[in-house]
């Protein structure tokens, strides 16, 4: 490739992700990948246009950031508002919020696994591009596709039943102080009736994933497989938790470097940086002394969040079938699981856990009708943290004495993973770009690195407009020498 060969690869748009982006790979004088970047090129501006709105509107506005993880945005936003109200929300309100977040884990993870990544996993990274869709999956393995569609639908159905507004995507039911309405007995019974089918579907799918994983040795080795910190919330007993708990950080050996951190004090242990080539921020973890914590191999303070991180940081998974799967998962590597390819596996285990957990939480028929604490604003600032399907999500608001928003900062799960995604792209580029001819399968592998994280770029970049992405190969002089684009 050398001086006259290609020097920059651009993949744009990146397909089968949530949001819009492009990948560039810059080559050195010898034609070897020297750098790789995921660029988010557009801005949405939720932080700015929410200024001046009454704070209690924010859970309804903020959930519109995303059609895939609106419950998490509503939850983090409502929790920030709880902080402004300075209330303790009723137990039943907290329980119902948690149920909705679990249901969202099911539907969002199912979309990622079955609709976006199963084409690569089932048909192979080098499969004919036209077949790489849910249609291709359905043609090759109808049962797998049926299970995926069923799980996505069930997750959405549970959200609609909990909120009983009939809305599966933006139910508008999680509000400051709790939830708008209690759960009905009819809805409880209907949700429980969905359990057996959902469990059978995810167990079949997990068995399938474990069977085919051995085909992906090169991808497991090269898809963002390196030491970082892992961060997320854990329940009071160190269990897997998505809604209420403490923040924990472990290093690449599995050692806990910080624990029982208060979500409401997250600005004290998180920092954020920006780069001129992307609208996605780069948050990092820093220790109590202000120094960025060492991850044992990568720049200090670099974290990964989301399913892989959650299964790496917890002491236990509190449902029987998922606990068994978690034990197998943790046995993949000594210490913690480092390959980001295994986000897929972790995602499936979380779906199993969410289904079991919803069932366990709904065994009690007696339901309290008190689900919302009401108050006037008692503080001028609030911070809400929840685990979105993709990882830790933080909403931080400040209001004036009239209750109008004067400042908003959102720290999004995909942003936490930003550094790992970028470094993972370089790792994969070095592994799979071995000569001047770059196959479609190689480009797809670069996209698949991004897909493994299931990034929600609409959330993270606050982007608007076009969705998918491009991959560009750049020369040492920055000129584009190869570009792949899918519209």
């Amino acid at each position, binding site marked *: 490739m050398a001086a006259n060969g290609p020097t920059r690869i651009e993949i744009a748009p990146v397909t*089968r992700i949530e949001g819009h982006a492009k990948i560039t790979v810059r080559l050195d004088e010898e034609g070897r990948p020297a750098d790789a970047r995921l660029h988010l090129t557009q801005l949405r501006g939720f932080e700015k246009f929410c200024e001046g709105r009454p704070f209690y509107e924010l859970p309804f506005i903020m959930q519109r950031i995303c059609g895939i993880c609106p419950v998490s945005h509503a939850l983090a936003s409502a929790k920030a508002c709880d902080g402004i109200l300075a209330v303790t929300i009723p137990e039943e309100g907290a329980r119902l919020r948690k149920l909705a977040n679990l249901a969202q884990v099911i539907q969002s993870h199912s979309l990622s696994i079955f609709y976006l990544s199963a084409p690569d996993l089932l048909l192979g990274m080098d499969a004919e*591009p*036209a077949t790489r869709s849910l*249609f291709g999956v359905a043609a090759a393995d*109808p049962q797998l596709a*049926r299970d995926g569609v069923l799980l996505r*639908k069930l997750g*959405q159905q549970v959200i609609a039943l909990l909120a009983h507004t*009939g809305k599966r995507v933006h139910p508008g039911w999680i509000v400051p102080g709790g939830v708008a309405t209690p759960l009905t007995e009819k809805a409880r019974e209907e949700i429980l009736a969905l359990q057996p089918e959902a469990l059978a579907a995810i167990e079949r799918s997990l068995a399938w994933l474990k069977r085919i994983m051995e085909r992906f040795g090169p991808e497991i080795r090269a898809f963002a497989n390196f030491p970082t910190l892992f961060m997320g919330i854990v329940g009071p007993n160190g269990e897997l938790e998505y809604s209420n708990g403490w923040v924990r950080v472990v290093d690449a050996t599995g050692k806990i470097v910080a624990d029982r951190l208060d979500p409401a004090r997250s600005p004290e242990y998180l920092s954020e940086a920006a780069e001129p080539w992307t609208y996605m921020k780069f948050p990092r973890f820093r220790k109590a002394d202000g120094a960025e914590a060492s991850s044992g191999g990568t720049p200090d303070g670099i974290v990964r969040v989301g399913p892989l991180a959650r299964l790496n940081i917890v002491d236990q998974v509190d449902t029987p079938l998922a606990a068994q799967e978690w034990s197998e998962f943790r046995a993949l590597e000594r210490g913690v699981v480092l390959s980001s390819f295994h986000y897929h596996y972790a995602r499936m285990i979380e779906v199993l856990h969410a289904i079991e957990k919803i069932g366990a939480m709904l065994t009690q028929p007696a339901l309290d009708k008190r689900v919302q604490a009401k108050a006037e604003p008692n503080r001028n600032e609030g911070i809400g943290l929840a685990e979105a399907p993709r990882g830790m999500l933080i909403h931080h608001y400040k209001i004036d004495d009239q209750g109008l928003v004067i400042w908003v900062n959102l720290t999004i799960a995909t942003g936490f993973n930003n550094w790992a995604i970028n470094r993972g792209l370089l790792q994969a580029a070095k592994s799979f770009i071995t000569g001047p001819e770059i196959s479609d399968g190689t480009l797809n592998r670069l996209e698949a690195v991004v897909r493994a994280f299931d990034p929600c770029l609409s959330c993270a970049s606050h982007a608007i407009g076009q969705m998918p992405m491009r991959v560009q190969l750049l020369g040492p002089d920055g000129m584009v020498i190869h570009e792949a684009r899918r519209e």
Partner: protein
Amino acid sequence: MPRLTIIGYGNPLRGDDGLGYHVAERLARKVEQEGRGRDIEVLVLQQLTPEVAEAVSGSERVIFIDATCRLPPGRIACEEIVPRFPRHHPTTHHLDPAGVLALARLLDPGCAPQALLLTVGGDSFGYREAFSATAAKSVSAVDRALDQWLEGFLSP
């Protein structure tokens, strides 16, 4: 499994584009009030996603209701739909009725519902929740026609 699935879709925040959505919303209430949920499932959607394929796969008959800018404002058209794979790379966010049927058949090869697409020409697709005057008249006409047709479909 309901014998009939009615799917009204569109964006209720974009003027006449929400026509199918509103028609289906009214029908869903009517079906619930009349206790006909065993025979008729009504889906009120903003767009057609892969999960819709699962919903239609067990039905004898499917009716899609949508607004269109391809017909003159107020004009109502009805056409039979057959399964057809999407011409472009299919996304997870949006399918057309023929794509939904094609996916339903892949998921369940025995699935072969008779499918109709009812479209109504819209006049205004801007950012508003209200219909244009022309579309509002068409909605009433569609409501009446569907009510009448349903009586016939459900009578023994």
